């Protein structure tokens, strides 16, 4: 069975019987605060930072990071979303999917430091697609990647610049990120994969 892209977290899965939390709400908040400080430190003040979240949960994480950055720097940080559906390399493996919103901040990304934000880094294919999508929108000064969870098993030469938590996993395990904005609570669950029924998202 091919491990079909669990980069974007499987929200429909209800295998929570076996899933155990590895990050709780206070952990997530602390981790995001740390990442925000790292961004400020590395970008020397985060003057030209633009945060782009990858739907669905990356967008909420990007907004939370933007709030933290605003607290630290005292300036509002442009934040947007970048839908990568049309750039996926596995489009033809499944029925056409619904698109999510791409929302680029008014000043654009040209010459800026774009920080892509996603919930789980897995195969790296989502980020590859995001880089392609970004190339059609503008030419950033640099692109960095922030993820809440890095679960390993990369299939492409991609790594994250800011990692909330490294969680070593086996391919049979699933990592599910739940955020208050979408799921009603903040948590990261580690569970065992059910037998995958094809064509399910």
């Amino acid at each position: 069975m091919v491990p079909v892209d669990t980069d974007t977290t499987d929200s429909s899965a209800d295998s929570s019987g076996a899933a155990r939390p590895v990050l709780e709400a206070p952990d997530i908040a602390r981790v995001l605060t740390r990442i925000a400080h790292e961004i400020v430190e590395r970008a020397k003040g985060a003057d030209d930072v633009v945060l782009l979240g990858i739907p669905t949960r990356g967008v909420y994480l990007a907004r939370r990071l933007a709030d933290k950055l605003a607290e630290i720097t005292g300036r509002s940080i442009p934040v947007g979303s970048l839908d990568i559906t049309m750039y996926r390399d596995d489009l033809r493996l499944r029925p056409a999917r619904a698109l999510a919103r791409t929302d680029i901040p008014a000043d654009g990304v040209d010459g800026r430091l774009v920080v892509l934000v996603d919930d789980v880094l897995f195969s790296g294919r989502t980020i590859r697609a995001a880089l392609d999508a970004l190339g059609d929108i503008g030419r950033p000064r640099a692109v960095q990647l922030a993820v809440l969870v890095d679960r390993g098993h990369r299939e492409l030469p991609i790594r994250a610049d800011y990692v909330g938590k490294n969680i070593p996993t086996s391919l049979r395990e699933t990592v599910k990120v739940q955020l208050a904005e979408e799921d009603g609570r903040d948590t990261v669950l580690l569970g065992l994969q059910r037998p995958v029924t094809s064509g399910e998202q």
Partner: protein
Amino acid sequence: MLRLPGASPRTPGHLISAADLSRDDAVLILDTAEEMARVADRPIKKLPTLRGRTVVNLFFEDSTRTRISFEAAAKRLSADVINFSAKGSSVSKGESLKDTALTLEAMGADAVVIRHPASGAPYRLATSGWIDGAVVNAGDGTHEHPTQALLDAFTLRRRLVGADQGTGRGLDGRRVTIVGDVLHSRVARSNILLLHTLGARVTVVAPPTLVPIGVERWPCEVSYDLDRVLPTSDAVMMLRVQRERMNAAFFPTEREYSRRYGLDGDRMSRMPGDSVVMHPGPMNRGMEITAEVADSDRCTAVEQVANGVSIRMAVLYLLLGGNEPAVTHSRP
């Protein structure tokens, strides 16, 4: 769960009729078009999504605007486009639809966009087993023109509900009046069906001779008095008087038609303040619509053209963007 446009049991994986679309399908297409419309604002107006797919525009009737709209949509999604028009082709030498279809199949068409003077030709093409690709009806005889209805609904939703607020919603409770030659109009037929599906209330206004038999079974009201309907209309859709189809005495003179059923500035001023005037084009200025109305801010004719590309991108993406469309036809 995501369903394909036209996922009716009779024609899954094709878009033949607006009647095949469920409300969820229709809203999904409009929402997808909303995202496609954003691509038009970007410096690079192209997506790699349909790279390597071939879309054939099979046009047995002249139609520049529909064809270039489909062509632009397919090209923005990086599909290869082959234009096939009946004039000066093998069709003018007497080739049948079947043989044309088999030729296209042999060339590996993933989708066929067909415009045909005979009602039902796209359905025949989709269900005959001649081709494996998706079939999109771009207007067949006096039957239907579903992508036109979708782009009209999209334009209405953007104007009346708002581009962002409209996402995920239909046109519930909006009152749309369709004026003109309903008898011959595939645009009217598709619009009535789709607008009803989306929850709008449709009224048809036409001379009695241009109202089709059986209209009482359609999901719309019928009126012969434009002035009475206008004050309660959120949108008025003016249909073109199709001179090429005026082969009997449907109305005494063009002047009389224009006086009773044409939209001028005076009539427009009696419509509600935020209502819109739509026209599928091409317009006959001075006939069904005066220049004053056509050039006013309320007239959405130009917007409709731009929205047409977004809607057709959405339809092509939903039909071709995933793995094979739901059904594979068994070869004869």
